[in-house]
């Protein structure tokens, strides 16, 4: 079961504000989903290596060469707020 305190803790980690209603329904829904997921706890997986990649390849290497990137203006154009050629955000200490 995921209780209210756990929901609030995880929401803080996820940088996600939740309304009181959302906290309630999240607790209920996540508990239900985890009830199904926890069935993998019944399997004997002793010594089974975890999957790291599904296709058999190792070390995708390429030459370390500089390439042109996108112009700054193009990248800033999508931002909600721009100042002095950078992304503008509220102060962390406001």
């Amino acid at each position, binding site marked *: 079961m995921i209780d209210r305190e756990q929901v609030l803790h995880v929401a803080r980690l996820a940088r996600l504000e939740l309304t009181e209603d959302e906290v309630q329904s999240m607790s209920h829904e*996540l508990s239900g989903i985890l009830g199904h997921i926890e069935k993998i706890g019944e*399997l004997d997986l002793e010594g089974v290596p*975890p999957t790291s990649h599904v296709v058999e390849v190792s070390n995708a290497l390429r030459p370390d060469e500089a390439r042109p990137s996108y112009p700054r203006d193009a990248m800033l154009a999508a931002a909600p707020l721009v100042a002095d050629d950078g992304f503008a955000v509220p102060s962390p200490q406001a």
Partner: protein
Amino acid sequence: MSAEDLIALTAAQAVEKIRAGETSAADVYEAYRQRAAADELNAFVYVPDAVPDELPATDTPLAGLPLGVKDLFCTEGLPSQSGSKILEGYRPPYTATVVRNLQDAGASILGKTNQDEFAMGSSNENSAYGPVQNPWDRTKVPGGSSGGSAAAVAAGLVPWALGTDTGGSIRQPAALTGIVGLKPTYGSCSRYGMIAFASSLDQAGPLARDVTDTALLFKHMVGRDHCDSTSLDYPEEVKLPTAQRLDGIRLGVPEELSGEGIEPGVLESFNRVLDLARELGATVESMKLPHAPHALSAYYVLAPAEASSNLARFDGVRYGMRAEGTRDLLSMYTKTRHDGFGPEVKRRIMLGTYALSAGYYDAYYGRAQQVRTKIAEDFHTAFERFDFIVTPTAPTVAFGLGAKTDDPWAMYLNDFCTVPISLAGIPAISIPSGLSEGLPVGFQMAGPAFSENRILDAAFALEQGIGFDGSKARA
């Protein structure tokens, strides 16, 4: 040729007609553009006002044919929001590699198609643009997450479309709308420019009216891309299918994915295809994938875990919307994410963050990756005895809008037969196998990594025998 005649052509046929000078790329584009612009299914979220000034040359492989592109593919200067409010107004400065590859082969973007928000869903009801209707019955869902692409192809609003598949998001909507959908081998198509959901699972793939069109589109998507280090050189040329028979082909039917939980009408249709396969020379044998029943549990740890990381980038700083009236940086982040994400996305971010949080990692993420290894081994072992593993694509036909929105796990069960294949990273196709209760049923066929040519060939032989008629959905 009349617009009606043009719409009746498959993509491959339309390419031939354009090359032969019987019609033009502009006429084909305009015929589809008018239908897409008048779309009542909510399949398209963006359609241009006119035919582009310059269409690709008629001697290109795709001859300028229009293409539907799922919203989550970045397309330079065009809306690309992955069905989310949080990317409101986003016009990317670049185009996704697979879209670019198709443009280089002569495809023209007809528009962007609706989807579940960040590809999280199996009904297309989790879209900030609203749900999509199934052209076979407007009270039903088209499946998801590539529901807009599937509905648009089925309804003849576009000849073919791009989708993405993480746990079934191409195959399940293809099944529910009576079209063909291919989830390629992980790594065959570049993920660069696809707005990420679960990076170890996400693959782009084609949705098309028939197997030949599916092969033709896929042929021009594949290839290694220096912008995606998990992409690979496709080991052989993708060919258009020609097989008429299935002599010597061994089909394995996993007991775990072809009995319990599958609707009777869907099973009947599935069994009819197995009979047809035998008539065409294949052998059909029941077999076991012992860990397949645990795939959904593993998937709903892994996919949300990856999503919670991938979606951390949506914080109101670099793109999309920012919540108004916040005082400090932290509340700007949390409020923007509250206002911008829909309920299912929030649920999966929470689930993934929980599964990765201190004290839970080994019990959830670590274990799920071990289950994934076992599932991949099950398939690996099976392919020593069988050429393909076949199942129904989805356990039911298209269900009613709103029917499963209150129960997340009931919704997740839609992907019961598709998720094991996704976890193994192997390719699978869904082809229409017939109708049940007047609605399309999908037949799924999976093969070893990079066996797409063989899958397409076998699917083509079955398709000829099935003789599915999808014209009703285009009427």
